[in-house]
């Protein structure tokens, strides 16, 4: 798989001392949709800003399509489109003018047909002569998407595109993202909604406190979601430590001596052996309960470690 973006040991310390990114490594594959999933303040926006040239990096390097983002910024930036988290628009300009402005800023001549297509797709064509102040919040968000698409970028960053957006609009947005990807555009999207990552991403990268905790294919992460916790209730108290070396049992605060929580992975061969061992040791099983782990819980597990 070809990498379109390679981030190596990227760190960012702000002037006030905040360490927003520490030694981030991330490869982004050509043509994929990758979700950067992380709580507020994790460093998602900072990561995007460093790649796009909005903020200086403290150390590390970023390559886009084989070019360094600092040395060859013209080459890298001209193929990137960015939909920022915060909507920033010149309030008194017309919709069509701000979209054309973006296209020109990225070094491209006006192309009325192309701009018309984008505005029509985003349901903004009727509003093209309206001033930004006259638009609703949802429309403004579509305008910043139109601006980001105005130079037909190969790579599109979407920073929390559905934060604070209602359910219908969120589904529309997902549809739009899928359409854009179908044309071959690589999409990097940040979100703190797990179901959003689950819905549209090919890969998910979990980021917290400036560090990437894991980057995996969604299907593999969902495999992990197949993980269950099995609670085995015994008739009398037993010594957990006797089993914890050999078996994947959880020593959490909730476990009392009568209950053992067993981490069951898909088609776990050890489970049968565990039950047999318990029986051979003379323990009587009163009850067994199973509980599926949601992606949410997996995520919280990873983030809290």
């Amino acid at each position: 798989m070809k990498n379109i973006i390679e981030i190596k040991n990227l760190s960012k310390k702000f002037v006030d001392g905040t360490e927003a990114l520490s030694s981030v490594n991330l490869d982004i594959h050509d043509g994929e949709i990758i979700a950067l999933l992380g709580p507020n303040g994790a460093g998602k926006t900072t990561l995007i800003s460093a790649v796009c040239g909005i903020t200086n990096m403290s150390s590390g390097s970023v390559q886009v399509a084989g070019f360094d983002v600092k040395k060859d910024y013209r080459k890298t930036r001209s193929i990137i489109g960015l939909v920022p988290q915060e909507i920033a628009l010149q309030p008194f300009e017309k919709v069509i003018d701000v979209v054309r402005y973006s296209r020109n800023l990225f070094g491209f001549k006006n192309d009325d047909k192309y701009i018309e297509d984008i505005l029509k797709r985003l349901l903004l064509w009727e509003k093209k002569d309206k001033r930004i102040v006259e638009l609703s919040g949802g429309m403004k968000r579509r305008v910043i998407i139109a601006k980001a698409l105005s130079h037909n970028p190969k790579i599109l960053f979407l920073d929390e595109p559905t934060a604070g957006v209602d359910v219908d609009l969120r589904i529309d947005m997902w549809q739009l993202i899928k359409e854009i990807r179908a044309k071959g555009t690589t999409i990097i999207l940040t979100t703190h909604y797990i179901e959003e990552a689950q819905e549209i991403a090919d890969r998910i990268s979990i980021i917290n406190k400036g560090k990437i905790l894991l980057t995996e294919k969604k299907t593999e992460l969902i495999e992990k979601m197949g993980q269950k916790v099995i609670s085995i209730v015994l008739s009398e108290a037993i010594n957990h430590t006797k089993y914890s070396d050999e078996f994947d049992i959880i020593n959490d605060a909730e476990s009392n001596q009568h209950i053992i929580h067993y981490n069951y992975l898909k088609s776990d061969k050890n489970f049968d052996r565990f039950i047999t061992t318990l029986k051979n040791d003379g323990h009587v099983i009163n009850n067994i309960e199973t509980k599926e782990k949601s992606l949410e819980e997996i995520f919280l597990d990873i983030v809290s470690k």
Partner: protein
Amino acid sequence: MNIQAIKAIYIFEMSRTIRTLVQSIASPVISTVLYFIVFGSAIGSRMENISDVSYGSFIVPGLILLTVSLQSLSNASFSIYFPRFIGTINELLSAPVSYTEIVIGYISAAVTKSMIIGLIILITASFLVDISIQHPIWMICILFLSCVAFSLMGFIVGIWAKNFEQITIIPDLIITPLVFLGGSFYSITLLPEFWQKVTLFNPIVYLISGFRWAFFGNSDVYIGYSIFAIITFTLICLLIIWRIFSTGYRIKN
């Protein structure tokens, strides 16, 4: 060179000006007329000629420079401060545009606007007093360089400022006094000798003196010094801007 981007920034800025055409142009014209009524006619009629030039005509170059310098400063500082304030500067920073192109785009728009205002004041004044320009080419050159220098300075202020008040601090507290004390409305030769010496530390003196020389052919300080001072001032501003961008000061940190 990303010519498209320079053009886009320039046109965007100019269209903002055109949208606010009346206030952009009417206000300097009105204030000029007021100055002429007060200084040129009411007070000027009782003033002696300065170096064979009637007082009304004498103040024209100073008045143009006063307005043009303040206009350049406020236009340029606002044009870069506003995108910082509302956040649209991020688009500029993420675009394949060099710092030089950004500066050229914004500064040429600010200079265009100031030049137009300067020429409008000149035309307005020519209806009110006698004006003959000895060195028209130099007059345009000095006017142009002054617009460039003050626009660059405004650009610096616009990047440095943390709020709207700070944008007005530099023009109000520094430039306005310097321009007034720099001989806009009098010849510095009229000052006591000590204050003449002090005044020579005011860079605006060289600007006004040079500009007045282009009009009337005589000046308070040698014209060569004036040209030198204007160019030095411009270069210093360019150097500061270059530093700002190469360190990302208040933009990228």
